[in-house]
């Protein structure tokens, strides 16, 4: 195997039916340091999170800030070690079957802060060529590759290769970050609020670029954002997170049309509407998320939920299928056996 082969795209293992990424029971807690005479708490940033990403799809992850979206991203790529749970890439569990280094060839990430994620002392070319060089590509070939990637993300290498990050605009910097993420020929790219800091017009350009690259290179995206309009535009399926837990997941159209979890409904209702007949009249959700150091017992949302009943603070709801294809929600109102007064009655189709 020659040096160039080292960065050829990784071959598919499990076929199209096999999810590209399967995350199950992922958990991560951070210890909060207490004072000398005070007990520190534990923040459960990500708590028993499970989802899967199909080959070639865009999975959106949405939620308020602090809900564990970014921690999930960092756990997937191994920047922080999980406390528990399993990550499998194309059927191969990370750890026993797939080393972290090999995983990072297959999964790359684009960060939110386009400036902080570029080394101010390196030129654009050196930044993109760094990954390939680490994986044993010769400097000349890595350079060639960097130029090719610059062209792919719509920047002329003759103009941009020798520039420093501070000489670029926000949109250009984010294109460099995308090129850097693609330099290792990954199959999955995690976009952590990758377009959130950009102007709306530049954001649209970068989103189109991402979709073009996805088709051209056969990529799969995990798209993390708090901007529901953007998520709806780019995603095939969406996972909604609240306080470190998945509260609802499903295909984007089904989720928008028929959100089952009160939190998802509140999020959707909070989107500013341009239609004067559909004006948002009152705040759909009140207050801030509870302190994640001591999250509420039972359903974590019950403190802010308009439909909360005693059962909600007593038991935590499990993620249950809602009946529609691949649509699931963690709410007692979805579970006919929960005892919630608004729980959906048993339907014939579900028994069959």
């Amino acid at each position: 195997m020659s040096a160039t082969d080292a960065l050829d795209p990784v071959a598919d293992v499990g076929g199209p039916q096999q999810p590209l990424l399967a995350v199950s029971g992922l958990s991560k807690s951070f210890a909060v340091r207490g004072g000398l005479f005070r007990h520190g708490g534990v923040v459960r940033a990500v708590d028993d999170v499970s989802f899967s990403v199909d080959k070639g799809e865009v999975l959106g992850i949405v939620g308020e800030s602090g809900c564990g979206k970014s921690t999930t991203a960092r756990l997937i790529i191994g920047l922080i070690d999980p406390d528990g749970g399993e990550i499998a890439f194309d059927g191969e569990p990370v750890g026993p079957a797939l080393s972290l280094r090999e995983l990072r060839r297959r999964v790359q990430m684009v960060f939110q802060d386009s400036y902080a994620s570029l080394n101010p002392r390196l030129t654009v070319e050196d930044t993109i060529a760094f990954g390939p060089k680490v994986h044993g590509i010769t400097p000349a070939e890595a350079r060639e590759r960097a130029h090719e990637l610059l062209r792919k993300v719509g920047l002329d290498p003759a103009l941009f290769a020798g520039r420093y990050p501070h000489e670029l605009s926000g949109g250009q910097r984010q294109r460099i970050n995308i090129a850097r993420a693609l330099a290792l020929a990954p199959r999955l790219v995690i976009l952590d609020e990758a377009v959130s800091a950009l102007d709306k017009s530049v954001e649209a350009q970068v989103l189109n670029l991402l979709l073009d690259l996805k088709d051209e290179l056969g990529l799969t995206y995990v798209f993390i954002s708090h901007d529901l309009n953007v998520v709806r535009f780019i995603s095939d399926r969406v996972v909604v997170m609240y306080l470190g837990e998945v509260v609802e997941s499903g295909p984007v159209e089904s989720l928008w049309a028929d959100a089952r979890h009160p939190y998802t409904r509140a999020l959707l209702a909070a989107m500013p509407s341009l239609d004067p007949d559909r004006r948002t009249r009152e705040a759909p959700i009140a207050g801030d998320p509870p302190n994640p150091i001591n999250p509420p017992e039972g359903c974590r949302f019950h403190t802010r939920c308009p439909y909360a009943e005693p059962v909600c603070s007593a038991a935590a709801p499990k993620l249950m299928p809602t009946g529609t294809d691949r649509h699931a929600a963690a709410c007692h109102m979805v579970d006919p056996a929960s005892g919630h007064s608004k729980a959906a009655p048993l339907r014939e189709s579900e028994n069959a």
Partner: protein
Amino acid sequence: MSAIADDIVRVAVVEKARGYWTDVGRRLVGDPVSVVCAGVLLLIMAGAIFAPYLGLADPYQGSMIRRLRPLGTAGYPLGTDELGRDMLSRLVHGGRLSLLIGLVPVGLAFVIGTTLGIIAGYVGGLLNQAIMRVVDVFYAFPAVLLAIAISGALGAGIVNSVLSLTIIFIPPVVRVAESVTTSVRGLDFVDAARASGAGPLTIMRVHVLGNVLGPIFVYATSLISVCMIFGAGLSFLGLGTKPPEPEWGLMLNTLRTAIYVNPWVAALPGVMIFTVSICFNLLSDGMRSAMDVRD
């Protein structure tokens, strides 16, 4: 896909790709203060290196009848010292030891301190605690006293005083290196480098070093003047240079009794120390702005 924003940029100034240090050099040359300071320092260093070949008077040859001549005396442009030795020759020759004592300990402390500081800052955890707490121990003693104690324990001599000065300058360099490394380490580009599969050594070399060297270097340059003065102090106590060796700190001390007889001559070694210190300080300021690519 064509991007309008990028087409506009095409019209903007096209800069050729060049290395980072070429850039820093170009900016440094553009700063008149830095150029003057570098010139003065080069002159003094060249004088020190080539002192024996400049046709100066013997710096050790004294004359009892020509003691403490004022500035401008025929044959002695900068006068004579308390033993009648030519001040010009002694000042030029004195640069050899003074610069050695000022530069070598700081240089050694810079290399050792930066290495320890970057490792402590990047690796963190227990290793950080171990390194930084040992460094803290050194802070329990005043630096001069520590230098005297180490020099005294090792015995008098140039090598030992260089050694003791190196030891006392390592802790402050480690602290600066550790704190800048810690701040750089938390930035996303270090995470991105880790995510690309690079090992800690590669990341420290490529991504951390370039971003922390500037501030540490500037700080170390500012230590040179302090180091020269500490070296002079050690010489005064008989722990460093010994008479009749010409060395600015030692000369300042031996001429101190002549301050009422011939103040201008007595002040000359101090003028040299002052000039070299201020030049290094201004040069380090110039370096700091030249290394900031965002200007």
